[in-house]
């Protein structure tokens, strides 16, 4: 009985979490624009979605910024983690405080504070906010996640292996790439993926730093929700949901397989 109640409760919460998503999916196939009456089945909103140039350009922008921001943040963050590991406790503490700042600060404050700086500089040099400022902002809020993923891996690493490589004739450079990098690779990858997904998903900070011409997908979605009923949003949601679902299933199957192989 107890088990039934507790399982039932979890399913209720899941229903709560998925209800709006299912509604969006169902109504993406609705012929009429109504959000309450399902009249007839259609794919026309999907066709219109792919024909919408603004959405397609913003999708391209989003992917471009996410890739660039994740790569930059990963390089900058990994280098920072390596340096921070060698610092004295006090200096490292200060660096960690700096790292936590964009993580803890409300996003809107991070967004407007960077906007103040960018607007100030743009007045000085007669230049406009756009892709560069969005990219800078994304790198800034992504780097901390790379550091927070790489540092623990560096701590777990056995310092002696690096020295052994040096003793055996490696140059510091090749010792670093042959010994240290493979060891901390899982942390680097995790940091990269976090940076990438956060950049893809970010709305608030982009909204304040993008100027008037450069739009990412979340910014475009926001503009669409401000207008009247727009079933293209439903079609877009359905596609994004399916994409996420497929990626997560693949990741989980691979993870499960890796765990099984380990057990053997």
């Amino acid at each position, binding site marked *: 009985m107890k088990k039934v109640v507790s399982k039932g409760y979890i399913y209720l919460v899941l229903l709560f979490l998925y209800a709006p998503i299912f509604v969006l999916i169902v109504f993406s196939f609705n012929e009429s624009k109504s959000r309450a009456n399902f009249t007839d089945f259609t794919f026309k909103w999907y066709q219109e979605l792919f024909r919408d140039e603004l959405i397609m350009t913003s999708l391209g922008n989003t992917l471009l910024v996410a890739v660039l921001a994740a790569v930059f943040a990963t390089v900058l963050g990994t280098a920072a983690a390596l340096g921070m590991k060698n610092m004295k406790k006090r200096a490292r503490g200060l660096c960690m405080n700096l790292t*936590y700042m964009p993580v*803890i600060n409300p996003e809107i404050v991070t967004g407007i504070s960077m906007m103040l700086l960018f607007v100030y500089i743009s007045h000085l040099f007669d230049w406009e906010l756009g892709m560069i400022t969005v990219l800078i902002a994304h790198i800034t809020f992504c780097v901390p996640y790379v550091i927070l993923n790489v540092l623990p891996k560096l701590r777990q690493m056995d310092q002696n292996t690096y020295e052994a490589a040096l003793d055996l004739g490696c140059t510091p450079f090749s010792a670093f790439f042959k010994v240290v990098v493979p060891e901390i690779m899982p942390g680097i990858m995790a940091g990269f993926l976090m940076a990438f997904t956060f950049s893809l998903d970010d709305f608030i900070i982009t909204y304040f730093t993008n100027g008037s011409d450069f739009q990412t997908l979340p910014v475009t979605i926001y503009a669409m929700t401000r207008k009247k009923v727009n079933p293209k949003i439903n079609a877009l949601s359905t596609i994004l949901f399916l994409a996420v679902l497929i990626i997560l299933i693949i990741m989980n199957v691979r993870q499960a397989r890796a765990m099984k192989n380990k057990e053997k």
Partner: protein
Amino acid sequence: MKNKMTAFPYLIWMAMFIIIPLVLVVYFTFASEDGGFTLDNIVKISQYTPIFIKSINLAIIATLICFVLAYPIAYILSRSTEHYQRTMILLIMLPMWMNFLLRTYGWMTLLENEGLINKFLSIFHIGPFQMINTAGAVVLGMVYNYLPFMILPLYSVMTKIDYSMIEAAQDLGCNPVKVILKVLMPLSLPGIITGVTMVFVPSVSTFIISRMLGGGQNMLIGDLIEQQFIGSTYNPYVGSAMSLILMVIMLIIMGIMSSFDDDEMEGIVI
């Protein structure tokens, strides 16, 4: 490997794009338009006190609801089989991967006056209820968007709790309420603190949820700040002052939260 220099580009980057912008916020807070020192911006904000109080209230309510909903889930999951745990955590995380604008838009569809919930209720001749554009809808949006932020830290702390502690308490005559208050709660405190912060901070500073689900009558701090920076009423002076006050509120709340915790969080405290 004894080189600290590799952290320098990062430190310079953060100084330029985190520290200087925050210094600018402080500067604009106390600057007048001709560049002199003034307290006017802060004084001007006092007229918005009701909005600040409303934001904090709604965020506290949303945080409490999240906590009450999430605590049993985290407990049930931490006591289930490993396979069930993995699947459920995945299912709880999955909606988070979709942009929150889209999910909130989904709620607009559900809550509208001619929306699905009212339509469903009308079958039983109940309603229609005014749900969208109310403070309740804003709280619902906050709970919906941030509930996983409460579940995950609670869950990860509870999987580490030794179940024999609970059994021992029961054997020694604790009733279920006492077990929860005296054993489970103290042991899961770090998770509670993380969860509460992770729900409260985005809730109190949101401007999207209030705009999409609250209509015009449910302005929050976030909406106020956004209005100062985007649109025709560009006023970075008052906007900065509001942001500074928001940050102070946040620091106070987080200070209160961390005072409950004996173990200091690594890194945050020097």
